């Protein structure tokens, strides 16, 4: 195993250039170093002007997502040694506007996320004196997979549909909507359906399936979307044949 590896890092400094350029750095490559360690080495020892996001370094915060050798990855969970002898090409997440170097604007995702109300909606809260909302392990299992989403947006970077049509609400927002739709304590499914059943909602998805492959938490957003398509179709048929409800 080589003791050093070359990083080719995308740079975009709007005050200097109008296109992405690449700077190359040589960094140590011990077997326990991830791509983020390499970037931190560059930032601390070689070039302090490099801009990128990171926080927890343990696959929880979802802020260090970047494109590594063409694939969307959490850089805190992507080992440099796996790319030996290199070079390792590090670029910003695809499909998002680049603010600087490896930092992208996530405002579009944040606005879409709020639209699907990713929290438990209750029509009426029960009084505290009645205790907590109990749930069986089977009821929790229904949504638990989708609750693993860490909002890292790798699925948006992997989705060609989002790249072609930025109005598409996107994989993570739909998976998180399903996380609450499938929660037996929630009563907000009808409110979410207004957003999800639009053309830019679930029907924008053509099931490429790349979101599920890219997800570092095995959330399976593609599965969530297809399941919701089935739900929306059944609800649509119900409203057609039973317009006054059943």
């Amino acid at each position, binding site marked *: 195993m080589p003791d050093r590896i070359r990083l080719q890092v995308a740079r975009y400094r*709007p005050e200097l250039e109008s296109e992405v350029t690449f700077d190359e750095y040589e960094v140590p490559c011990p077997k326990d170093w991830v791509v983020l360690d390499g970037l931190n080495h560059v930032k601390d020892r070689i070039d302090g002007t490099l801009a990128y996001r990171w926080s927890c370094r343990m696959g929880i915060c979802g802020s260090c997502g970047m494109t590594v050798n063409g694939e969307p990855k959490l850089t805190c969970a992507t080992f440099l040694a796996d790319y030996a002898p290199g070079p390792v090409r590090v670029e910003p997440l695809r499909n998002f*506007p680049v603010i600087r170097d490896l930092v992208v604007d996530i405002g579009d995702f944040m*606005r879409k996320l709020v639209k699907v109300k990713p929290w438990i909606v209750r029509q009426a809260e029960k009084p505290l004196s009645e205790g907590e909302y109990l749930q069986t392990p089977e009821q929790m299992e229904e949504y638990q997979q989708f609750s693993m989403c860490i909002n890292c947006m790798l699925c948006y970077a992997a989705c060609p549909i989002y790249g*072609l049509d930025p109005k598409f609400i996107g994989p993570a927002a739909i998976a998180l909507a399903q996380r609450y739709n499938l929660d037996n304590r929630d009563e907000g499914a009808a409110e979410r359906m207004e957003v999800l059943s639009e053309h830019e909602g679930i029907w924008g998805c053509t099931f490429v399936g790349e979101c599920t*492959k890219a997800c570092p938490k095995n959330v399976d957003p*593609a599965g969530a979307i*297809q399941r919701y398509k089935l739900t929306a179709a059944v609800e649509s048929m119900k409203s057609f044949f039973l317009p006054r409800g059943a």
Partner: protein
Amino acid sequence: MGDGHVDAAYHPRWLRPHVSTYWWLQKPSYLVFILREASCMFVAWFVLYLLWLIRAVAGGAPAYRQFLDWSATPWVLLLNAVTVVFVAFHAVTFFQAAPQAMVLHVGGRRVPTHLVLAGHYAAWVAASAVVCWLLTGA
């Protein structure tokens, strides 16, 4: 986060990504996806072909003979050979995708995805066996 905030949809200094027209050639999985989407045209062709066959059968022996002669022309043979490949590809990729969309419960327990997949293949084999029996045994 209103539209007037710093994260507004447009900012003059942000670099906008451009998706190439040929994005589907950039990764093998994207190409497989596009081929899967294109396979629906071949499925449609088989439906049309079947409808023409029914019309020919209903038209009597001469019409049926004419249909068989037309079906034996090289370009129809080639088209049907390509169609068989694409329809099989369509079925396999559809079956692969089905367990993600179908969540079944039996006796309060979720049916494992490999059983959902196996059910689809079993139905395919059963339907093919019936067709074979109709063609050869009946």
